[in-house]
C-alpha cells in the first residue's frame, strides 16, 4: 500500500510551519495509522531527516494522548474513534492523507503535530475532584446511588480529554470537555457538596483560557472517541444558571 502524507511541520511554537508531502510505500492496511507514521519516521531516520513529532501513549484508545486532524476530521474519517484506533484499511492505495495538529488559540503547537493541552489541566485544577479526604475505599453500598444516576455519571466520566471536541469545534469551545467533567461529579452525591463552586470555577477557567462559546453545531459529539453527548453541555448550562442563583 502506498499513500502520500501531507503533514504539518513546525519546528517550534514560534516557527511559522507549513505542510510537507511525503510519499510512503510499503504500508499494509492492517497497520494502525500511528504505525504508518512510525514507518514514515523510520524512513526519515534512514534519510537523516528530522522525524515527525506526534503524541501517543497507550495506543489502545483509552488514554487520550493521541489526536491529530486527518483529512479534515478530528481523529480521522471514522466517527467516535481515537487516532490510534484508526487503521490504514480506512484509506485506499494511492490516497493523499493530510495531517494537521489540533487548531485552537488555547492549544498552541509545540512541535509538528503536538499541541499544548495544559489548558484542560487548568480547568481540571479548578474543581474536577472532591476535596474531602476519603481515606481507603469505602464499602461499595455505603452510599446508595440509583443505576440511572451512576450510568449518566459514568457516561460523562468516560471523557479521556483528548481535545478532539475543541479541535473540531469551529469556535474552539471546550464546552463538551468541561461539561463532561462537571456532570460526572455533580450528578453524584459525593460531588454535590461542592457542586456550585465547581461549576462556577471550572466554567470561569474555561473562559479565561480563551476557548470560544458553544453554538451547538454538534460536531464534537461526532468526533468524541467516547461519544459524549452534547446534552451534557445543555446540562452544564442549567448548572451554571443554578449556581448563579444558589451558589
Amino acid at each position, binding site marked *: 500500500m502506498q499513500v502520500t502524507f501531507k503533514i504539518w511541520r513546525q519546528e517550534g511554537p514560534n516557527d511559522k510551519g507549513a505542510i510537507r508531502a511525503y510519499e510512503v510505500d510499503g504500508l499494509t492496511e492492517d497497520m494502525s495509522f500511528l504505525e504508518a507514521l512510525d514507518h514514515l519516521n523510520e524512513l526519515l531516520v534512514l534519510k537523516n531527516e528530522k522525524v515527525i513529532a506526534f503524541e501517543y501513549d497507550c495506543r489502545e484508545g483509552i488514554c487520550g494522548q493521541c489526536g491529530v*486532524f486527518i483529512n479534515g476530521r478530528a481523529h480521522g474519517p471514522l466517527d467516535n474513534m481515537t487516532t490510534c484506533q484508526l487503521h490504514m484499511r480506512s484509506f485506499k492505495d494511492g490516497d493523499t492523507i493530510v495531517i494537521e495538529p489540533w*487548531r*485552537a488559540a488555547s492549544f498552541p503547537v509545540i512541535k509538528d503535530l503536538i499541541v499544548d493541552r495544559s489548558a484542560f489541566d487548568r480547568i481540571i485544577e479548578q474543581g474536577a475532584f472532591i476535596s474531602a479526604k476519603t481515606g481507603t475505599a469505602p464499602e461499595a453500598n455505603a452510599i446508595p446511588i440509583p443505576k440511572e444516576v451512576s450510568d449518566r455519571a459514568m457516561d460523562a466520566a468516560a471523557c479521556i480529554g483528548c481535545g478532539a471536541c475543541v479541535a473540531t469545534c*469551529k*469556535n474552539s*469551545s471546550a464546552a463538551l470537555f468541561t461539561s463532561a467533567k462537571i456532570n460526572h461529579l455533580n450528578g453524584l452525591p459525593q460531588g454535590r457538596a461542592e457542586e456550585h463552586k465547581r461549576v462556577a470555577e471550572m466554567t470561569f477557567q474555561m473562559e479565561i483560557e480563551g*476557548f*470560544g*462559546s458553544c453554538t451547538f453545531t454538534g460536531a464534537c459529539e461526532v468526533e468524541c472517541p467516547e461519544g459524549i453527548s452534547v446534552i451534557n453541555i445543555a446540562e452544564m448550562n*442549567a448548572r451554571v444558571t443554578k449556581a448563579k442563583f444558589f451558589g
Partner: protein
Amino acid sequence: MAMNQLFFRKTIIAGTGLFLCIFLVVHLSANCILLLPEETARGLYNSYSTTLRESPLIKIVAYLLYLSIVLHVVYALLITIRNRKAKPQKYVVNHSKENSSWTSQNMGLIGTMILLFIVVHLANFWARIKLGMGDVVGLDAAGNVDVYEVTSSLFHNIYYVIFYTALAIPLALHLHHGFKSAFKTLGFYHKKGLRMVAKIALVYAIIMGVGFGIIPFIVYLK
C-alpha cells in the same frame, strides 16, 4: 466570581431569539390575511394594522422587539469575534459537513443575510408608514391607513417578490438551528424533550420559510 461572559452572551442570544420566534408566528398569521380575496383582505389588513399602531401594549412589545433584534445582533457579533479569536488558524482541509450541518457552521453568515433583509423590509414598510418617508400612504374606504396598498404594490414588483421569497430560505435555516439550540443554551437537557424540540424546530422552520416565502408570490399573482 466574575460574570461568566460566555454564558451570559449566549443566554441573551437564545432568549431574544426565542422571543423573535414568537413574534414571527404573529407576523405570519397576520400575513395570511393577504391570502383572502382583494376587498376583504384590504379592509381586514388595514384595520388590523391600525389596531396595532394605536395599542399602547403593542407599542411596548414593539420596543421590546427592536431591543431584541439589536441585542441579538450585537451579542452575536461579540461572540463571533471571540470565537474567531479562539480559532486563529484554520485547517487546510476541514470536512465539517461530515460531522455537522452547514447551517450550524454558518449561522453568522445566514444571520447577516436576514439582517440585510430586515433593513430592506423596514425601509419598505416601517419607514414609509411610521416615519412617512417616500410616497405618501393614502387612506382606505374605512379611513384606515392603506397598508394593504403599500404591500400589494410592493409585491407587484417582481424583483421585490424574488428578494422576499429568496430571503425566506436563510430565515428557515436560521430558525431551524436557532430554535433547537436556544433550548440547549438555556439549559433544557431532557433527552426525549430535546428530540421533541428538534422535531418542532423543523416543522416550525418549514412553516415559517414556506409561509413568508410564498405569500409575496401569491400576492404577485393576484
